[in-house]
């Protein structure tokens, strides 16, 4: 890595537990050029000194929301041009890594530690196109993905 030109990272997550898990991964971005995306403006308090974008929170039934979110994400990806996009879920992160993949970024899905019974629906979709798909539970690891590297706890 060239210290004068650190990798550009875009870290995106939904609210609540997804964001709390992203927060615990902040040390992985130390010294890198990281921007955060989440669904509540006041989460920016958790990432002082970093660029922070707020996007619409959606679930899979909210078609209009997905349309708005897609426009928001394209704008952010266009401006940021990240080398890598990493997400801890859920729907906004899935859409972000899908768009980022089309735009040539490396992508990583980290399935929530809450999914100890099975990988989330979004995670199963992400597995088909991301560069790295991780579960946080060793017993959910599979040869064709998701992989297990550890957990945020």
């Amino acid at each position, binding site marked *: 890595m060239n210290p004068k030109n650190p990798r550009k990272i875009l870290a995106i997550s939904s609210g*609540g537990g997804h964001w709390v898990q992203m927060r615990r991964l902040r*040390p992985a971005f130390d010294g890198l050029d990281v921007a955060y995306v989440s669904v509540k403006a006041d989460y920016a*308090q958790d990432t002082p000194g970093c660029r922070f974008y707020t996007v619409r929170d959606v679930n899979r039934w909210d078609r209009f929301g997905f349309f708005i979110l897609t426009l928001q994400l394209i704008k952010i990806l266009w401006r940021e041009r990240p080398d890598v996009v990493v997400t801890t879920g859920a729907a906004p992160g899935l859409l972000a890594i899908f768009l980022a993949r089309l735009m040539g970024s490396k992508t990583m899905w980290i399935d929530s530690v809450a*999914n*100890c019974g099975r990988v989330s629906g979004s995670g199963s979709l992400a597995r088909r196109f991301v*560069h790295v798909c991780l579960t946080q539970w060793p017993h959910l690891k599979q040869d064709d993905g998701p992989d297990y590297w*550890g957990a*945020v*706890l």
Partner: protein
Amino acid sequence: MIFVTIGSMLPFDRMIQAVDRWAQETGCDDLFAQIGNGQYEPRHMRWERMLGPREFSQKLEAASLLVAHAGMGTVISAMEAGKPVIVMPRRVAYHEVTTEHQVHTAEWLQDKPGIFVAFSEADLPAALSLAQDHLEMGTTLISRSAPAEFVNKVRQFLVE
């Protein structure tokens, strides 16, 4: 203070109502509840619908015990603050959540120190007395970052 939180705006009246009833029956008057969009308004607890991250942290620090939905965000926050927590899973059958993942979370958490599980509102009073007898035990205090090994592996992928 007992801090009751349902973690988001999605209603979880089953839990709020049960804790409010417990407060009435025991006369415990030092409770604060975050109740989201629930229809039930507590009569024996102070309450707000939503808290920002700063207010949430303040309530968490001031609390001796949490009563919460079995969401990992709340559970991790409780562990980062070293506070004991009672969790109750949201259920699909009552339209409180879209999958049964909180039941799985609760099953996984139930043997962890400082974490008490009420699988339904009927279990809450017992969990509350049990937890209050073990307040000194606390939760296993965890650091505010993921374990270094996991952080390093993720970082390696980011920079390579």
